[in-house]
């Protein structure tokens, strides 16, 4: 397939892997920021091609994983209201809140719907004027333009029964938080290509300089990742720490200006709680000015029940790259995609779920609790 099969070619992959092997002289730890990249790495078995010296750690770029539990609880509470149609991207539905997930309340009768675009949610609002339609606006800079557009369009069309439960987060502040941590093991970054498609990569230049880490904007296909790793390793071996762009077929230095303008019109920067990481200053978006009337957080005041996480989940350490899913005693034993203790076991982009589905080494005897065979 055009623009896909070229980036999954075995010969080219082997050549890049060889180039990486030729370049590496000592151990390096590289973090891929985005969950979509983690997914490709485990799905294509890419680590099999890398030399031992290279350790990939999986970053916090999974919107499902970092959305705070308080907000999941809030979403669940709003979805349970009889006057509400709650709409969300699919993989938010299984994320466990303090006691329930959106799937749980859907089964109990709440009107929860999977949509592929916030504009579809807006359409729902228009066709159900007697109901309140709430969209769970999560994600990084990648989904921000579409969510901003939904609010803008609602305002333009004077749709009043629509609102957004916003939990938008930003990549650069999270990278800085990781790099400032005493435990930081990361020596180079593969920046998230799609985030940079929207935002460009100028904001990463001061980070690379300040923390002396190479940052390579990288795409999502296996060859993209191999090339991104090669570029990062080359910088590390040569003692450079620059921002480079592997994903030049989609990313320009300045990004997508019209999308940025729409984001800036609708959202303003705010501190955000990150699940597993805590509060990071200036690390998210909230609705601004006249768009605050579409803030579901304000429209549906909280009941205020305190949230509580499963004490066994080490999601915070996983998301910082300090531990791998295998290192968690609950992994694939108490914590499975059917019964996740924490968010990284939910989305296919979450490191734990990705490891569970695709990355479990054959030496690990974790198949003893296979679910019973499904019958038709």
């Amino acid at each position, binding site marked *: 397939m055009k623009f896909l099969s070229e980036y*999954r070619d075995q010969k080219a*992959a082997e050549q890049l892997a060889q180039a990486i092997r030729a370049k590496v002289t000592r151990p390096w730890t590289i973090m891929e920021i985005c969950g979509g990249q983690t997914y490709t790495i485990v799905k*294509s078995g890419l*680590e099999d*091609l890398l030399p031992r010296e290279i350790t990939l750690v999986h970053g916090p770029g999974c919107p499902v994983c970092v959305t705070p539990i308080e907000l999941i609880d809030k979403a669940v509470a709003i979805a349970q209201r009889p006057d509400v149609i709650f709409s969300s991207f699919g993989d938010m539905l299984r994320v466990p809140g303090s006691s329930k997930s959106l799937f749980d309340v859907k089964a109990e009768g709440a009107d929860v719907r999977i949509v592929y675009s916030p504009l579809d949610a807006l359409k729902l609002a228009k066709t159900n004027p007697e109901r309140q339609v709430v969209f769970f606006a999560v994600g990084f800079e990648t989904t921000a333009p579409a969510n901003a557009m939904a609010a803008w369009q609602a305002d333009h069309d004077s749709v009043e029964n629509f609102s957004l439960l916003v939990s938008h987060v930003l990549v650069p502040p999270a990278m800085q938080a990781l790099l400032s941590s005493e435990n930081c093991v990361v020596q180079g970054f593969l920046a998230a290509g799609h985030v940079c498609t929207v935002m460009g990569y100028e904001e990463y230049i001061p980070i690379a300089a300040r923390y002396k880490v190479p940052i390579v904007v990288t795409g999502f296909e296996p060859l993209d990742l191999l090339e991104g790793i090669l570029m990062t390793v080359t910088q590390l071996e040569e003692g450079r720490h620059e921002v480079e762009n592997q994903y030049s077929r989609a990313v320009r230095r300045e990004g997508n200006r019209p999308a940025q303008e729409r984001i800036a019109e609708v959202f303003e920067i705010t501190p955000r709680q990150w699940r597993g990481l805590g509060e990071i200053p200036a690390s998210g978006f909230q609705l601004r000015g006249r768009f605050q009337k579409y803030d579901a957080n304000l429209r549906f005041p909280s009941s205020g029940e305190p949230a509580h996480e499963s004490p066994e989940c080490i999601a915070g350490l996983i998301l910082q790259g300090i531990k791998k899913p295998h290192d968690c005693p609950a992994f694939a034993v108490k914590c499975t995609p059917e019964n996740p203790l924490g968010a990284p076991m939910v989305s*296919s982009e979450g490191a734990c779920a990705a490891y569970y589905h695709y990355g479990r080494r054959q030496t690990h005897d974790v198949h003893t609790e296979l679910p019973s065979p499904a019958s038709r």
Partner: protein
Amino acid sequence: MADGKPTTFTLSCPVPRVADDRIVLAHGGGGRLTHQLIEKIFLPAFSNPALDQRHDGAVLPLDGLTPGSRLAFTTDSFVVRPLIFPGGNIGDLAVNGTVNDLAMCGARPLFLSAGFILEEGLEMETLRTVVTSMQEAAAKAGVQLVTGDTKVVDKGKGDGIFINTSGIGVVESGAGLINGFERARLQPRHQQPRKTGALAPEGRPLAAIGPASVEPGDAVIISGDLGRHGIAILSVREGLEFESPILSDTASVWPAVEALLNAGIEIHCLRDLTRGGLATTLNEIAGDRNVCIKLEEALIPVDEVVEGACEILGLDPLYVANEGRFAVFVPEAQANAALDVLKKVEVSRASVRIGKVEETPGRTVVLQSRIGGNRVVDMLSGEQLPRIC
């Protein structure tokens, strides 16, 4: 009534309007409308001697069976939304699904039952379309629909039409007889006699079509490309449009199975790749037999448009449902012969070998990716959920 004469009074209820463009509750009430529905829609479509008796059940002839033949019996329910989708509708799906379940037992499909649960308000025209498709699919598969039932539920309590079909087929005496489940239950795999040529004490061949007969060394063949049905359904649900529309692959696969049996191929196992797709089916077999199934991603055919849709929707085609595809396990030495046979049959002309069965690691499906890495292909957890970005 002082004068003792009974007062005469007449009922003047309006004559009930006979609905003929939509299903009403009375269509399931067993009265006049039920009969009209049977007379006007079901009987004309499915007419055959057994059904035409209009008895409580069908009494069926089992003529011409060779001694030692056995019955195969299966049931399946169909709740698909939308009812009508590119390439088919719930009607042909309900026939083909059960026909294929019989075919996977190595059984020639003969008779079907059909239970309809209709939702009040369903357009009669939709029902007619569905029934016509059922009739066409049944005729094509060579099965007779010999008994049925209709119920109507209140509006909002159903999803238009639910259909259950049960099917009876015959496993001919030459087609592999000993119950594989018995063999697997009685003996661990490594203690079981090798199958090829082995005879049970009573002189019957130790052949059985089923997961229990899968052996290390088997080749894994699939009968065509993956994911068409699931993506055809999703594309309607999500309002996706493609340059060339993706049609469901719903079809009877019995002709392909029959050709394999007629050619004397030693079939170890047949499985249709319905809900949960190839990945789920293979995981079930690998788990049942404590074997490793090794696949090569580059060999697994997925249509370009299906693959594109999967990329957009964040799905993995290995887990997407098919309704006219099956996997067949045969000894490596017979793989080429099996492929030759399958490629001559319309429904399986795109058959391809995608992998093999190995001894270890047990209960595992491993896929070598296009770039040469390996990954475990796991059982699906819950529904495949579209990803955020």
